[in-house]
């Protein structure tokens, strides 16, 4: 029974969370705190704070941990399945249909038409990340890190892993 509740609690945010993981956070909070009473608001925000500090997709970290808190490892697995499954199935169906008709000129045009929209979307995300950084560590540090990262990634073609690790070390000690 509790597994079924866990499934539902993460199924809705997964299927209604338009705009990726971060958009589903308030929906998860509604289910977990208001509907099923598994956590208090302050417990939830503590989990969220740690989740935001760790790498990886946020929705699955929240689901995995809360599922584990409520019903152990099986709970974690059920919560993960409910978060990931439905949207992934939709994605598989849609893209497989497109793949089947990939030689039709209209389908070929699909990917071209959305290019500018994706560019705007990415630009918006870029700005978001810049803004977050500006608010957290100020303009000068942000600009220094951006310039350094740009040269490392684009000029010297370092693998992002090394650049991110450098960022982690710098951040951990100085920021």
């Amino acid at each position: 029974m509790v597994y079924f509740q866990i499934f539902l609690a993460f199924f809705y945010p997964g299927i209604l969370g338009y705009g990726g993981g971060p958009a589903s956070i308030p929906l998860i909070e509604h289910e977990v705190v208001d509907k099923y009473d598994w956590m208090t608001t302050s417990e939830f925000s503590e989990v969220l704070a740690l989740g935001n500090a760790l790498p990886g997709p946020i929705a699955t970290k929240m689901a995995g941990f809360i599922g584990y808190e409520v019903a152990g490892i099986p709970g974690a697995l059920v919560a993960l399945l409910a978060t990931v499954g439905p949207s992934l199935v939709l994605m598989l169906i849609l893209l497989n249909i497109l793949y089947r008709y990939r030689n039709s000129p209209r389908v070929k045009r699909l990917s071209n038409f959305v290019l500018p929209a994706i560019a705007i979307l990415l630009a918006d995300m870029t700005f978001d990340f810049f803004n977050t950084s500006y608010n957290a560590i100020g303009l000068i540090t942000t600009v220094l890190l951006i310039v350094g990262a740009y040269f490392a990634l684009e000029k010297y073609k370092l693998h992002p892993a090394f650049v991110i690790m450098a960022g982690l070390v710098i951040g951990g000690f100085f920021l």
Partner: protein
Amino acid sequence: MAVRIQEEMVWQLVTKKISIPFEQKGLIHKQKDIFIAFFRSGILGFGGGPSTIPLVKKEVVDIFKMMNDEEFSDVLSIGNTLPGPIATKMAGYIGYRVGGWLGLINALIATVLPTVVMMIILLASLNEFKDFDFVKGMTNGVVPIVAVMLGVLTWDFLKKSKKILGWKIGSIILIASFVAMILLGIHPGIVIAVLLVLALSLPIKKKEEKE
């Protein structure tokens, strides 16, 4: 002569100077690549799913060459029109496309599991895990780097729009998307869905049909 060429090829394989094209790799090598690609992008993606997008692109398109640019942007645009976390949608679909059902499960596990396990261990073992200043600082150091990667990716998409669609259509769609998503706050999923419908329903010029 033939022996020498063979030797050279073996040597190049050993030193990884030329790697076999992804489609020709064996099952185990394919799955290993899929796991590494999504493990790295999951564990390095600070700031949630969206920050993993440029990392996934780097691994899937540039390093392992599982897909080309165009296929990847299809995955990204369809992924954005659908609900749910973007990182797992990308991982699951790309895993499936290049490695079947096993690839799907493999990519998902690689994306999700390491960070979930970290989260559970940290929160379950440390009851008083309130002072994570060091960890917060680490995230602060990474956010500007992600901004750079996203900025570079944005520029890529702009260049590609201009190249494929041309100045006129490219800037019309660009400005329309900007007005709709940023100024009017219409959800990106809806904007992309409208563009997809337009692409499917507008009449095709004769020149395009011939291609």
